[in-house]
Each structure stands twice: as structure tokens, then as C-alpha cells.
């Protein structure tokens, strides 16, 4: 696989806050990447840096081996669909489509008009008159129909209902299967997208805390539940991600629990369950802020 995005020790400092803090990772060609993390974790800043919409404080970003900032040959390859994108006043839906057709080299007008019908978007309506979810759907249509080699969605579905979101996943997946590209999807709805992702990047407090293939993550963590004294005996052999007590009863999320440990726990009457990607990420990012002080320096 070819690396197309390479980020090294990337830092973005806003006054007093280090939004992106020494981040390094690579993205390979043709795959669906999930960029996951809590509100304010640094997801949007990271995507703005990658797409040349913000200035970095330190570090290195290479896209096709080049710095994306003010680099039209690189930026032409990218479509970035932002959360709550604003459009010029009086712009109608069809004007957005016409503008997108001019901007994106691989734009497919037929696909765009199919998608507009799927999402039931009135092409003659002004953008400002659309509902929140409809405006988001316009962004989704642009993101899919542009067929850009690097397609980035930042929380694309604010206000979109469950039907529209399902439609988004289906149409994205179908078009991706026919025309593979690199997709980076930032979202809070982890359960909904877990099966679509090849790879997961989790960012917390400006740092990448998890960078792994989705298949490797499946089954890597378990929830173990039962009398505290019995549960805690297993803590010595694995990494405890989260642990909660109620009286003398404990529920814990642990990673790397061996098959023999699972067998012996079950035999002792403990409840062992696999943990979903969403639960795993929640247990890894639910701690308190730690880098607030450092950032002030």
C-alpha cells in the first residue's frame, strides 16, 4: 500500500491551548479511516491542518510527499466536508452543485442528481431555507459525488435523521466499492460506522491514543463482571481500561484477556462479554484532562 498522508510530530497551538499536540500517523491509499474522539479532542483542527485551512505551529504534513498549504496540485485531490458548512446567502442547492462541478475534477453530475433525489433535496430551494439535516445532506452529496482521491468528512450528518444517515453509509459504501479512494470520517456515532472502517485513529486531548486496524481491535477488549475479589484477580494479567465497583461487585473493561483467562473466569461464574468499538473508545477517553497545564507554558 502507498502512503498518501504522512503526519509527523504535528502541533497546533492556539492561545494557551494545544489543540493538536505532537501527532504522528500515516494514511494509506484506498481505505476508510475513522477519526474518533470526544468534543474538543482536536479532530477538526487536525483535519483543517491536513487540508491546508490552518497554519501549523510545528511538525510536518506530507500529502503525496508535499506540504498541502497553498499547494493547488495537492488541494485539488481533496474534498473536505465540514460540519455546519456555510454557503453564500441566496445560494440555491443547484448553485452549490454547479460550484462543486467546477471545483472537483472527478465530479459526477449524474451521481449528484441521483443522490439529491435519494435525500429528497429540492434543488431550487435556497440553502438558508433548508432544515439543518437537509443542509448537512447537501454536504454529503458534494462529498460523495466529487469522488476526490482524498475525501474527508467532519461530522457530516448534524441534524440528519436515521434514514438519511443510513442512506449516507449505503451510498458511500457502494460508490467506494466501485471507485476506491481514501476516506477519512470523523464522527461521534461510532457504533453506526464501526463495520465500515478499515482503520481507527482515536484522538484525545490533542494526542493520538489509538492507531489500529479495526479487525485487530475487535475482540481485543472484554468486559468482566462479578464479585470484586474474583474479578480483581484477573487485573494482574491484563490492562485495566475502566473499573467500577458497586458494593462488593465489580465491572471492568480490560484489554488483552487471554483465552485461558476467559475460560477460567467463566468457570468461576464471572460474566465475560466482548466490548464494542464504541465502548472501548469511551473507556479509553473518559478520563479527566491532563495536558491543560502543559499547554499553558
Amino acid at each position, binding site marked *: 500500500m502507498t502512503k498518501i498522508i504522512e503526519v509527523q510530530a504535528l502541533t497546533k497551538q492556539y492561545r494557551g491551548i494545544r489543540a493538536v499536540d505532537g501527532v504522528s500517523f500515516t494514511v494509506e491509499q484506498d*481505505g*476508510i479511516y475513522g477519526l474518533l474522539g470526544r468534543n474538543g479532542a482536536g479532530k477538526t483542527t487536525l483535519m483543517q491542518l491536513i487540508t491546508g485551512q490552518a497554519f501549523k505551529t510545528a511538525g510536518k504534513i506530507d500529502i503525496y510527499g508535499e506540504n498541502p498549504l497553498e499547494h493547488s496540485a495537492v488541494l485539488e485531490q481533496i474534498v473536505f466536508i465540514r460540519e455546519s458548512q456555510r454557503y453564500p446567502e441566496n445560494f440555491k442547492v443547484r448553485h452549490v452543485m454547479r460550484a462543486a462541478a467546477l471545483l472537483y475534477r472527478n465530479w459526477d453530475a449524474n451521481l449528484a442528481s441521483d443522490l439529491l433525489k435519494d435525500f429528497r433535496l429540492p434543488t431550487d430551494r435556497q440553502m438558508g431555507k433548508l432544515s439543518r439535516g437537509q443542509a448537512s445532506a447537501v454536504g454529503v452529496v458534494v462529498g460523495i459525488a466529487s469522488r476526490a482521491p482524498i475525501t474527508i468528512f467532519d461530522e457530516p450528518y448534524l441534524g440528519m435523521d436515521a434514514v438519511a444517515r443510513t442512506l449516507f*453509509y*449505503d451510498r458511500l*459504501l*457502494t460508490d*467506494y*466499492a*466501485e471507485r*476506491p479512494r481514501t476516506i477519512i470520517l470523523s464522527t461521534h456515532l461510532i457504533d453506526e460506522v464501526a*463495520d*465500515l*472502517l*478499515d482503520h481507527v485513529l482515536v484522538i484525545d486531548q490533542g494526542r493520538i491514543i489509538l492507531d489500529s486496524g*479495526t*479487525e485487530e481491535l*475487535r*475482540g481485543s477488549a*472484554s468486559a468482566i463482571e462479578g464479585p470484586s475479589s474474583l474479578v480483581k484477580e484477573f487485573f494482574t494479567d491484563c490492562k485495566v481500561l475502566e473499573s467500577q465497583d458497586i458494593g462488593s461487585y465489580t465491572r471492568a473493561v480490560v484489554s488483552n484477556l487471554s483465552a485461558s483467562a476467559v475460560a477460567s473466569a467463566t*468457570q468461576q461464574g464471572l460474566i465475560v462479554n*466482548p*466490548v*464494542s468499538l464504541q465502548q472501548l473508545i469511551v473507556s479509553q477517553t473518559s478520563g479527566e484532562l491532563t495536558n491543560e497545564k502543559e499547554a499553558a507554558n
Partner: protein
Amino acid sequence: MDDESRPIFQQLAERLENEVIAGFIAEQTQVPSINELAAFHRINPATALKAVNLLVDEGTLYKKRGIGMFVSPGAQVQLISKHLKKFEFDFIGPLLTEAKKLGISNAAIFQMLGKENS
């Protein structure tokens, strides 16, 4: 896919195997394409490819270049014997563990099995 503890490609491969065993997909007939499987199950196409490759490696499916994937002749019998081997481990083992916990004797289990069959 519903089981969080196992890779999706394994679950998809098993699902296809079960369809062959049950005769829903006959031998020598074509199975859905990678893209169709991915869209239907809402999974990544790379995952669907992995499942199909697993079945090709095990001889359940074979490729016809430029046309698609087909169920191999003899696949049904072969899969049944593979699943028979797993039956004891997957079903009898847990059954006996639970029975032991509840204090059910082997004789009582036989009696229940007799009732189920009649």
C-alpha cells in the same frame, strides 16, 4: 454483523458456509460479488474480500476469471464434515458445563433429548 468478539470476515464466511450447507446456494452456482456482499451487510469491501478469499483458500468457492465466484462441486458434503467436527466443541461442551452447574445428570439429559425428538 452481530458478534463483537470475532472478526467480521469470519462471521461472513460462516454465514456463507451455512447457506451452502442448507442448500440455499447450490453447488456450481454463482455467489454475490464482493461489492454486493459489502453493500448488503454494510461492511467494508476489504472485509468482504477477506471472507471470500478464506472460502476460496478452503476450497468452498472457486473463481471464474472475469465472471465471479462459484460454489465448488462437493462443497456441501465437505462443509458438513467440517462442521460435524466442531459440533462437539461448540455445542456439547457448553451443554455439559451448564448441566453440571445445575446438577443435571447425564441420564436426565438423555431423557430430555428423547422428549425433544418425539
